[in-house]
């Protein structure tokens, strides 16, 4: 390992010298960048005058941290990475040598015990150590849990790799039950367990699964057919408003309106597709973006029908296939039918399983379609449209089916979203949503269902987790809201992932047919499509 480092030592300066120089440069650059951003701040004083607050201390801290980071990276990080040949595995995970040094059994046990202890004393912590420290301890607990999980994943990686789909689906099915059981045990009462599960099932589970479903739907258009669609949220909106309007005006059941919303969105997909699909690449992207905005503006301005930006409220809840309802006033309320205590958690858990089923339906249809001629034609279209035409494939209808299929799943997700929120307004369907969904598809690896699910978990789960970081308030002050930084983190994560794995988490492609053995196709051969 010294071999690869020593030539550098001989010819140039030692890493430490070089690091010092680089650190000085980095310091100068960050000083130049931040002197106005951080060093000075405009504020209002009591008499509402604009004053300039000087924050040299903070500036110095930031600059010194930058220099230190740069120094450590050049002096120790780079030689370490070089010796581990981390650069060689830019397309793979951490090399086993690094990982096996990082995931140690004693450390795993320590983390596990720490997490258990902290969970056990969770409620008495603030009293014991004070509010501020309790926040840090909670963060520490989260880190310990993540580390322990990562260890488990690392040690069972072969098994997990072999059974990923089964394990993933079982984990998803068991998730709400586990949450309720753990929380009930923790508080030693089922009611508070159910109550506590709301956050985990709704904010994390349902929220992530909605994005998984949306991204899987968009994946058909972008990942398989290679058509860059920046207005996917329009179909989500069509589905949501279809359910919201028809459900609240005519009292139709969710189970009738779900297919209707999908059909409506698919119809709009085709309507958009007809004029647009002769465009390619950037042009297609811009027109779909405009389409998304048009739908949103129509929703805002067509007040008589959509109630404008005030939105539609009082959207009926989903019923348990008409057998039971989730309104506590109804005679067939689930609690009364099953003789269990009243709780709003039932509805959330039911919704969780509903969106899980919808998402799995999307995945199932995508997998089936990929092995059908139409799915193969989508991928062929992404690879080379001219070759497709020379083989007699009608590229227009092929693109339209991709658009319509993707839009249909967007419509399903929209109807679900309306039912879950009970309220829709145009604000939920801004361009940023399209961008996030597209980012998840790209991060996950275009075309890969597993990669996309992982990307949605990391991205949406990660931003939701930011809300949990209360201890940051004690670092940055009371009015610090970590959620506001989620877009920053989203962007940083994207840059890092794109540098680390330019083709997304799962870069390889599963062939749809094989003669002797199924070999994954490396991403270096696949194309992204050009419209």
């Amino acid at each position, binding site marked *: 390992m010294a071999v690869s480092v020593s030539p550098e030592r001989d010819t140039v300066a030692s890493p430490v010298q070089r690091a010092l120089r680089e650190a000085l440069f980095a310091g100068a650059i960050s000083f130049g960048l931040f002197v106005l951003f951080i060093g000075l701040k405009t504020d209002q004083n009591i008499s509402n005058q604009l004053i300039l607050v000087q924050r040299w201390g903070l500036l110095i801290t930031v600059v010194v941290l930058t220099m230190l980071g740069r120094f450590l990276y050049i002096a120790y990080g780079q030689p370490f990475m070089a010796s581990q040949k981390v650069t060689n595995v830019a397309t793979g995970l951490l090399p086993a040598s690094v990982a096996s040094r990082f995931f140690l059994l004693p450390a795993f046990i320590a983390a596990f015990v720490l997490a258990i202890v902290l969970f056990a004393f969770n409620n008495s912590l603030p009293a014991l150590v004070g509010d501020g420290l309790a926040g840090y301890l909670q963060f520490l607990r989260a880190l310990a849990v993540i580390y322990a999980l990562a260890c488990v994943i690392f040690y069972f990686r072969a098994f997990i790799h072999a059974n990923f789909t089964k394990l993933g689906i079982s984990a998803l099915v068991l998730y709400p039950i586990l949450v309720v059981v753990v929380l009930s045990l923790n508080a030693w009462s089922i009611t508070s367990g159910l109550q506590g599960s709301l956050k985990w099932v709704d904010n994390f589970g349902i929220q992530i699964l909605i994005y998984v479903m949306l991204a899987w739907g968009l994946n058909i258009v972008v990942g398989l057919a290679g058509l860059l669609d920046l207005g996917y949220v329009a179909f989500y909106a069509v589905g949501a408003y279809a359910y919201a309007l028809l459900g609240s005006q005519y009292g139709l059941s969710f189970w009738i309106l779900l297919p209707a919303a999908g059909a409506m969105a698919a119809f709009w997909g085709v309507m958009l597709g007809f004029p647009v699909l002769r465009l390619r690449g950037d042009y297609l992207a811009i027109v779909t973006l405009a389409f998304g905005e048009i739908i949103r503006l129509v929703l805002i301005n067509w007040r008589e029908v959509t109630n404008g930006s005030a939105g539609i409220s009082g959207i009926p809840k989903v019923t348990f296939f008409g057998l039971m309802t989730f309104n506590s006033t109804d005679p067939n309320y689930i609690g009364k039918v099953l003789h269990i205590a009243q709780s709003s958690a039932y509805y959330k858990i039911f919704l969780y399983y509903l969106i899980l089923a919808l998402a799995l339906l999307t995945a199932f249809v995508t997998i089936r379609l990929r092995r059908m001629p139409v799915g193969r034609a989508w*991928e*062929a279209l992404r690879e080379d449209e001219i070759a497709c035409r020379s083989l*007699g494939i*009608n590229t227009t209808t092929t693109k339209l089916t991709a658009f319509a299929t993707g839009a249909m799943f967007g419509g399903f997700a929209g109807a679900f979203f309306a039912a879950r929120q009970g309220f829709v307004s145009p604000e939920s369907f801004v361009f940023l949503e399209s961008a996030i969904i597209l980012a998840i598809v790209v991060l996950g690896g275009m075309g890969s269902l597993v990669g996309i699910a992982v990307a949605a978990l990391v991205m949406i789960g990660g931003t939701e987790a930011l809300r949990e970081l209360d201890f940051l308030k004690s670092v940055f002050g009371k009015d610090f809201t970590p959620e506001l930084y989620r877009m920053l983190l989203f962007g940083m994560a994207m840059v890092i992932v794109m540098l680390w794995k330019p083709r997304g988490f799962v870069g390889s492609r599963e062939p749809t*047919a094989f*003669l002797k053995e199924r070999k994954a196709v490396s991403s*270096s051969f696949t194309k992204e499509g050009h419209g």
Partner: protein
Amino acid sequence: MTANAIQKTNPDMKDAILQVDHLSMKFGGLIAIGDLSFQAKRGEITALIGPNGAGKTTVFNCITGFYKPSEGMITLNRADGSSYLLERLPNHEIPARAKVARTFQNIRLFSGMTVLENLLVAQHNKLMKASGYTILGLFGFSGYRKASAESVELAKYWLEKADLVDRADDPAGDLPYGAQRRLEIARAMCTGPELLCLDEPAAGLNPKESLALNSLLMDIKKTSGTSILLIEHDMSVVMQISDHVVVLEYGRKISDGSPQSVRTDPRVIAAYLGVDDEEVEAVLTEVGDEDVIEQLDTGPDSAHGPGTSSSYLAGPVSDTIGHSQGERVTVSKGASKAAQYDTRANSAPRKPSERLTAKPAGKSPKPAAAKSPTGKPRGGRK
């Protein structure tokens, strides 16, 4: 075979699978093809040769519907007696209904899909019908499963022919160049074509691969009865396997006939070698010499013709009309070597046996050939 038969004004339609009549293709002021007529016979290998920029690929693009010709008629007669006017069919229906398949000068494979998948995509239309336009297939109907198994069998058949069975599950982009060429031909054959158009299939192949290609083409001709239209630079391929040769230069046909008659046609030699004052005499004395043929191979005229890269399908025709009016009209004097030869031949007629074509004399020559009124297509010479 005599050259006359090909040039007849009233050809035997039953015999010809492809009949191109007075085809012209203009890009702005550039006449890429001018009044081209030729025939390809059923069950034969017809070669289309000519220097770079002669318009060969453009002819293919017109036949396969990627370009809509400015003038002219392209008739395809299928074995079952139906005929199609290719210039009127939409692009994707030409392979589907008229059964014309093609390959590309720059290989166009689905590089991220496996070799087998490439061949399955080629059977799209058949499988689409079998799967009830996806609906029935989605629910796993047995009819689709049978069709799907059959399509794999057909793919296997062509994989064997193209000697690619071992690489069936590898990505197409991972194959060596020669194998990619063969795969592209196999893919085209999987559409079940009656006419196969190959655009420079031997370009960039080493001698061994070239030989494998030849035997693949002969095999296709013999076993599947598919007629082949072939663009080729490699003279050895042309001379060995083609039954009939059409020579283009600057969008015009300068010769048409059997390989032997074409190879000895002084205008073809002139077009390929370039003519200097003395050279043309020298060339004429060397007619038929193997050495000349060797040189034909290596010396396509690139100084005057635009590079092949400019001709590639950059998109719809309207996108690429960037040529200013009259660009081709002002082509440097003496660009057309064949025309130059003709001028010489006319001023000092050495070969009185030359025949003019059956083309109406009143038809005024296109600007491209304006500098030489005799630059009309002629029959092949003996």
